[in-house]
């Protein structure tokens, strides 16, 4: 497997693996992507999140040279996809609804790609076994299940041992072991110093495997950064507290300027850390039965960022 040049290291250290600059794409009257800018770094898994129709696939297709941007650019270390010397050794991509000629087998399909990309024939066997398709490799794709097709698409993306892996909703059709395997694969690739970009409309699906996220809605970037930071939101600390006397504690907190949502004996306190809430309760000699920082749920964060109700 290591007969390949050390692709893990970015060619120009410090340069982002993928740079999207002020990218816009219109389809007639539809602004699918609107002045979008973001970067992804080598050695990290970046989630590209947004509701249906947000413009994720369009962005990725522009990045891969499949659609022409109306304005702006999307490059790999400064080079457009079609300017890359050996595209399949630099970038591997799994697109939505991956399609194959139904009459050809997985092995045949990969052999054609290996010839096109100048990859040695043994890579075909390696990626087939990596995705668990070795046994079915000579069957015609026509008879494959959706998950098997998805695995074949992933095998094709891995064929050139690329530095950048781009996955558009790759867990479509994968069974739970397949999803776990895919997570492991993404982590491994990132640990090797490669950049991984995975799109999804379900935050929970990728939350376990991404380092960074970019959130897009209506073609515009809504948030970007490390996952925890984006999840934390911008409304400051919040605390959940259970009190023996919720009414009096609410009064005490509100007198000090905190907003409080009461739900039975549970209070959600905004703008205060657990320490502050505990101190206030102690000062008022009120018994506290439970105290914890309040984190937004994944869905709450997603909805808050994209403004879309599920």
């Amino acid at each position, binding site marked *: 497997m290591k007969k390949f040049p050390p692709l893990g290291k970015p060619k120009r250290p410090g340069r982002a693996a993928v740079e999207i600059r002020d990218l816009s794409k219109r389809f007639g009257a539809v602004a699918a992507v609107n002045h979008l800018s973001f970067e992804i770094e080598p050695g990290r898994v970046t989630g590209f999140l947004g509701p249906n129709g947000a413009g994720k696939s*369009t962005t990725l297709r522009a990045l891969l040279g499949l*659609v022409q941007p109306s304005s702006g650019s999307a490059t790999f270390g400064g080079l457009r996809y079609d300017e890359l010397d050996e595209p399949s050794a630099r970038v591997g991509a799994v697109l939505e609804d991956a*399609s194959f000629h139904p009459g050809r087998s997985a092995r045949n399909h990969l052999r054609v790609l290996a010839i096109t990309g100048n990859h040695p024939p043994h890579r075909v066997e390696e990626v087939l076994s990596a995705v668990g398709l070795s046994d079915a490799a000579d069957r015609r794709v026509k008879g494959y299940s959706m998950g098997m097709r998805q695995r074949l698409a992933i095998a094709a993306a891995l064929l050139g041992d690329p530095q950048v892996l781009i996955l558009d909703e790759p867990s479509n059709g994968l069974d739970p072991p397949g999803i776990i395997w895919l997570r492991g694969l993404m982590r491994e690739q990132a640990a090797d110093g490669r950049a991984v970009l995975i799109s999804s409309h379900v935050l929970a699906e990728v939350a376990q495997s991404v380092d960074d996220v970019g959130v897009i809605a209506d073609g515009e970037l809504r948030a970007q950064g490390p996952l925890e930071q984006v999840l934390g939101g911008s409304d400051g600390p919040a605390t959940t507290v259970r009190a023996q006397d919720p009414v009096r504690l609410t009064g005490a907190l509100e007198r000090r300027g905190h907003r409080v949502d009461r739900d039975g004996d549970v209070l959600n306190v905004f703008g205060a850390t657990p320490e502050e809430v505990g101190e206030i309760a102690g000062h008022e000699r009120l018994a506290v039965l439970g105290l914890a920082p309040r984190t937004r749920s994944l869905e709450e964060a997603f909805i808050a960022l994209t403004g879309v109700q599920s």
Partner: protein
Amino acid sequence: MTALLRAELLKLRTTRTFAAVVASAAALSLTLVVLGAALGKETKAHALFTNSAITYIIVILGAIAMTGEWRHRTITGSVLAAPNRVRLLAAKAISYSVAGIALSIIVTVPTIIVGELVLSGRGLATLGAGGIADVLWRNLAVAALLGPLGVCVGALVRNQIVTVVGLVIMAAAIEPAVFQAVPEVGRLLPLAGAPGGVLGGTHGDLSPAPALAVMVAWTLTIFAAAAWRLRSRDLV
């Protein structure tokens, strides 16, 4: 480019359609020639062996292959593997030129051998070596140009059924009708007119060399149009 061409040829060799069509075309034209030579009044060997039916098959095969990229939605994968779309189209066109030549050899050579045997058995005139070479180059040249033409028309139109039906109507109805009405125009048309001239057909056709030049011009023009269109097309 050579890698791309090798990849396209591998695709061609390993899809069943191509093998099946080649086999049936060979069988069909062999049967026709045997019947024609054994029973027919047509005893002019040259006319018997310049089999234009084969040439239409390669134009259709090229068209099916290229439109199949859209029908099976494999065009995005093909362009990802080979982002230079003009080169991709060129590789496909050249591979169908090679395929046309292969098809033509597989069909024509046994046909000539068997036909000559039957003709000489009946005591009729056969083609000499020069005559055979003449028949061969005409068939090969037409097939070598019509394969890429089918590919490029497919890349322009994209819809498989529309392309195939359109090509058949053009070759079998429109071009012959134009030829009837205005031979000077009809003989310049790409699917039946100019190929007819190369194959050395009827009165009114162009002679082979200019006919070949017209075919080359058609193929290059349609290639240029298809390449220009493909370059700017959004693949979604």
